[in-house]
């Protein structure tokens, strides 16, 4: 119960960050919040349902690695975009939308 509600709270805080931050990097930070919360919830739920610890851990590990890869690519995009446009606010990427 505590874990579920806590993770839900952290997750929705991440949602809020993604929705309100203007800064792409901060938006990525919000996404990290959601990923982390979801991962904890995943492990907690699996264990409370009698899941095999090793399987759960391996699964969560894979999630973790993929999320890290996503963050790396995201950062690369941000830095490149910044180099080209000197901007990192989502509002300012208007021209990207065409």
């Amino acid at each position, binding site marked *: 119960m505590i874990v579920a509600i806590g993770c839900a709270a952290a997750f929705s805080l991440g*949602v809020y960050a*993604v*929705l*309100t*931050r203007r800064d792409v990097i901060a*938006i990525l930070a919000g996404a990290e919040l959601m990923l982390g919360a979801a991962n904890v919830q995943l492990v907690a739920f699996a264990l409370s349902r009698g899941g095999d610890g090793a399987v759960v851990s391996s699964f969560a590990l894979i999630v973790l690695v993929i999320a890290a890869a996503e963050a790396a690519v995201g950062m690369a995009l941000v830095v490149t975009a910044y180099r080209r446009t000197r901007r990192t606010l*989502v*509002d300012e*990427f*208007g021209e*990207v*939308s*065409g």
Partner: protein
Amino acid sequence: MMPLWFVLVAPIAVALVIAAAGRGPVRYTRWLALVGPVAAAWAGAERLADAGRETGVAAEAVSWFVTQTGSIDVGASADPIASIMLVVVGVVASMVVVFSFGYMAEDASQPRYFALLSAFTAAMTGLVLSTSLVGLFIAWELVGACSYLLIGFWFTKPSAARAAVKAFLVTRVGDVGLLFALALLWRETGTLVTADVLAAVPTLAPATITTAALLLFVGAAGKSAQFPLHVWLPDAMEGPTPVSALIHAATMVAAGVFLLARTWPLFEASETARLVVLIIGTVTALGAATIAVPQTDIKRVLAYSTISQLGFMFAALGAGAWVAAFFHLVTHAAFKSLLFLASGSVIHGSGTQDLREMGGLGRAMPVTAATWAVGVAALAGLPPLAGFFSKDAVLDAVWVHAPVAGAALFIASALTAFYSFRATRLAFSGTFRGAGHPHESPLVMKVPLVVLAVLAATLGAGSWWFAELLGGHAGLAIPIAVASTIIAGLSAVAGWALYKTGPAADDRLAGALGGLWRAAAGAYGIDALVMRGAAASERGAATASERFDTRLVDGLVRGIAWLARRVGREFNELQSGESQLYAALVGAGAVLLASLALWLGR
């Protein structure tokens, strides 16, 4: 035994080969066009030789598609009727093809021409052989399509293009009737295999039978140019003359008769339908015969003659004598295709279609003149030529059945003899009135004429065999035969004698007959009437559908477009390129949907 599939497939393949080979090798590939007709004639003859032992055997039948209420089968079989038709189609078509070698020799579009002829042969044999009404309908439409393409063969001529369209549209009216008939029969019997449908006739309500029969007759009337759907046939003469011989004299127009013969049990079960067929047939026979008299175009004379003779056949059908009608079909195919080919030869040799510009051709083209004479005599019903026997059978049947109609047909046959000999005298006697030097046609054109002339002269002898094969009554009704011979002979003499003076006789006759002559010359204005009526109804329908289209359909479309634009403009605001707004919408949507799912799934 020639397999039926070969008869069907070979002409199609040949058509493709000829069309694909193109103009260069057409001198050789055009001979391939003979494959289909010869195969058809061969197959039909073989089966006729076996007649009585193998009848109505489905050679190949497959379920085309299966529905909940039944399956639609298509197949091919050759019963005696079909076999006879195969022979007729095959012989006439092969003669026409050979004739065309000469007639079309100068034409640049020969590959198209011979490919179409071959395709037509395939369609016609398909129509004849089909075991189901669906297959028949498909072939029926293919025949119509080939006819359209051949009438409009010289499509650069506006009149030819118009005639093709007219023929296509008018016969389409009949085809709708046929389609309705098929729908009705499908609903009532659950099958469209011809034999099954006919076997189910006794179980049907009389009204249903009458309706189905009349609808079938509408289809047949369209294809066979019966009043008032005959208007396309005279115009169809815009096509090459051999095509007229093949399609518009011998085979396609006979398809209506064939259809009624094929579905005869339906008509046998319906007195009303037969009466309608009799009336229409008689009116057509008499009317077309009168129209044929004042025509000055040799092909139009033959065209109205064809309509008239088809009216004879339908009158016989209406009188219940389908065997007589079918026999007349066969003999008519022989002598009318002969006449058309001979007229083709005349046109080829004299360079004109106008009777008033001919004359004296008998000396210039003796073979043509001799064969034409045989054909004319057969058409007029002079003994002992083929036409005599078949027309006698028709007159006998109709006279016995309905004397009024019989009398009308006697008049019609008198007129037939009259206009036949009028045309003969105008064309072949006297001196040449046109320009240039008429000359005899080459050998390839003369051979078919001779063959067909022999057939036209001798087919009458087949009368007994024919009756035996199809189960009609044999023999000659002597009083009728004598009467009709006398009438035809007198009329023929009258026509011959009256036109001693050439075209001037027309003026005298016109003066004597007054308005009647002019009316007949103008085909009683039926053409204009029909076309105007059709045009009016068409325009009404067009206007209605145009209104429907602009108001409702376009309105709907425009309304949707307006709505889409409006909605788009409203939502334009949303698509600002702000990814976070999208994310917010996705989030809101997810929450809404999930809560909805939770609320509903409770």
